[in-house]
């Protein structure tokens, strides 16, 4: 952790960016052992206002929308600075895929897909994603052990 994440072959990913839940699962599932970590009550989050959270040894950015919940790395892939939770949440229209949820880096405004971590403005960048779930109104994030 602490090193900006880069995918080796981002172009391939871009070309096959056909969203389905399995792909979201895939981009959130890295190699190695993972664990679910409880983070905070769902009620702590305001829709559209990202928050940073500590999940194990990871700094994650939590994003709540009306009925969606995302967790991505808090570290800006371009600079490594811990700022992603301070970015603006929004959406990007993709061909045949409707409006996809996004977050923009607050530093230089690269826009990332919250579901796949792919960057719309610079295909060499990738934002690490984590799976989330709500258990008894508490948000849990799955992170590498």
């Amino acid at each position: 952790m602490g090193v900006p994440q880069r995918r080796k072959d981002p172009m391939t990913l871009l070309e096959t960016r056909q969203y389905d839940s399995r792909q979201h699962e895939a981009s959130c599932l890295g190699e190695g052992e993972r664990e679910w970590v409880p983070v905070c009550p769902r009620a702590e989050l305001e829709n559209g206002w990202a928050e940073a959270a500590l999940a194990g040894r990871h700094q994650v950015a939590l994003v709540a929308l009306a009925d969606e919940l995302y967790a991505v790395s808090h570290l800006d892939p371009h600079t490594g600075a811990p700022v992603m939770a301070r970015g603006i949440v929004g959406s990007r229209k993709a061909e045949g895929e409707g409006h996809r949820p996004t977050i923009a880096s607050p530093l230089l405004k690269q826009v990332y897909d919250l579901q796949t971590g792919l960057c719309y403005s610079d295909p060499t960048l990738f934002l690490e994603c984590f799976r989330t779930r709500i258990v008894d109104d508490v948000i849990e994030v799955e992170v590498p052990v």
Partner: protein
Amino acid sequence: MSHDVTSSSSRSSAGTAPRHVVVVGGGPAAHRLAEALTTRDVAGALRVTVISEERHSPYDRVALSRRLEGRDDLTLATAPWESDTVTLLLGDRVTGIDREARTVTTESGVSIEWDELVLATGSHAFVPPIDGVEHARVYRTIDDVDWLVDEVDRLATSLGRRPRVLVAGGGLLGLEAAGGLQRRGADAAIVNSAGWLMNAQLDEGAGQALGKIIESQGIELHLAQMPRAVHVDAAGAVTSVELTNHKHVPADLVVFAIGIRPRDELARAAGLEIGERGGLVIGTDCRTSDARIWAIGEVACFEGRCVGLVAPANAMAEVVADRLLGGAAEFTSVDDATKLKLSGVDVASFGDTRAELPGALEVVYADPARGLYQKLVVSDDARTLLGGVFVGDAEPYAALRPLLGAQLSADPGAYLSVAGASAPVDDELPDAALVCSCNAVTAGDIRAGIHEEGCTELGTLKTCTRAGTQCGSCVPLVKKLLEGELTKAGIAVNNALCEHFSMSRQELFDSVRVLELTSFEEILTRFGEGHGCDVCKPAIASMLASHFDGYILDSGRGGLQDTNDRALANMQKDGTYSVVPRIPGGEISPAKLAVIAQVATDFGLYTKITGGQRIDMFGARLDQLPDIWRRLVDAGFESGQAYGKALRNVKSCVGSTWCRFGVQDSVAMAIRLELRYRGLRAPHKFKFGVSGCARECAEARAKDVGVIATDQGWNLYVGGNGGFQPTHAQLLAADLDDDALIRYIDRYMIYYIRTADRLQRTARWMEELPGGIDHVREVVVEDSLGLGAELEAAMAKHIGSYQDEWAATLADPERLRRFRSFVNAPEAPDVGFPRVAEREQWRPATAEEVADPSTVLLSGSTIPVRSGS
């Protein structure tokens, strides 16, 4: 031109040495020639020396009225003088030409050899030999204008009233001089020999309509009269001017602008052919009777006459440049189109204004009582446009002038805007149509700029084609052409805010205001799609702030805010923030300085003085911001809004309180303005400046709103900025008292906030506004749209609801929650900000320093070293 074997060895003995071109005169024609030669002579075939008797670097004489009204810097682009191959000699006058030796000698005794000589000596103002005329002045150079302005100020002080200025001459220059001096605080009167004004360009009906407008500005007219004598008192001060009807008109200052005469004395002495009414006779190649001597500009006599306009001067300069480089360009015709550059007076004419061509018909709309007159001159079948005259409303001028000689697609009457018609829009300008006559830019050139150079914005299009960069009268047409071409190319002028909103910022702003929408969700549901983005969310946050004020992070508006607004602080590259307390006018007590010093010390912050006379403290973590601000607010500071698209600061000089030269208390005014407009959000950040005298130490003309003290009050400048594309602010109004100053600033700022595009600074906004500064003056000063009271009320509402955002944050625990570092560990410090020491302060460690284990990474008292290792 081939090498001349007889030329002396010191000149250019070998064919490879550059030939020496000497240009006599340093006006716009000489400037254009030097510019054309430096850009086109890539092979280095020529070396150029320009000799000007004026002390000023060549300036835009056409714009003298701007100097008169606003002390504008008229200096033309200095790039030609920075070229290695060009020498500019200022303040020296050529006194003789030796055609045999091919030299010129100057007043200072220098002798300069030439291979090619270009005479660009221009004209002098004609002054008739009447009694006392030595006490009169002329309106011709920057020095003349500056002297007149100073003299009006001096007379106002010594007489204790508005000085009376009599201007002899009712042509373009006379009207500009009279109107400009009237605005500078004089009572002006005009004497004109003809029975109406601008008789060289206008027919009687148009001239009379113009007379109505001029009289309505308080300028007295004496028509069909000439000055007979200038009377002075025993001390030599002017008292009155006697006219040919023996009437005495009281005057303290007399200015002659009755005509110009070519400065052909050098050429006469050198034996060159001179025209019947003066001027150096040239052919279409711009050569004089000596093949090595050329003439350009007002001194050149082409087809029997000399013309005092910049467009033909520029064209001649281009011809000579081309010829000197071996080309065969020809000067063929003189474009007589003119437009009066006097604010509040619209006059323009072109072509055959008096319908003198055989069979020419006139289509006239005249309403002399309202000062309106429009006339088109057309061929006998009413199809071909031959000329036009516009007074009081010159709106059709820009679109019609390029159609000179072309077929009109509709009945001529349809083009007269005062008759209630709006001009047919489907007249496609032929590529050859001249759009910008000052710089000879055709419609084809503009289309090439759009399609080949990719200039799809007005600003870049002007720069790349040069259209509209001199007198500016064609800018509306250039804009129309641009929009037309983009629409045709399917690049439909896209004003959409972003993919979520198809409306422009202004449309959305008005809709939000009219429908009283108060949340992003409402606005999105009504006008947008998707979930918004980092473009539309901050733009809408700004609109909501403009309409409803209130705390910017409440009511669901927190997530809309851009990076800095979101934390009420400025995020830096490592994710920490900087903090800038407001220091109004840059005035701060030692005790408050000590507070800042102590806070920065306690929190380990790096401090730097900003460009805006404030102090920036860097390196604060998000969770530290409330603690830092509690200390600052307790000590009497408030947010400086350095994070907002809002008023940043009002920069001031020390002013009359301390300064030997200051004439007004600039610090007090700066503080008053800063406290009035603090917290005001706009499409872009904006800055003010207030200078206590004309020395302008506060650099107010580099600000969006610049205020400069005068003996009588304040001059108000608007639309300046530094940054990526620096622009000087332009004079909006002169000699205002405090109340008028504030009233105009109120109106200006709200008008800008309501109509500008997203992230558009005031300078770019005014560039894009049809009419530019003149339009702004009409709205703000003359209240032509009747919006004045509404704009002032909007500002009053903002001022009434202002609250310090940081005091408001500290007072509310719910708001403080936004500054927690981690939602599940609010007390745990944000982590990962390694620091190194440099020049006695902390700075962020570079990536290399972090990676290098030998680097000493330090931390301040509360800053932990890097995490995760």
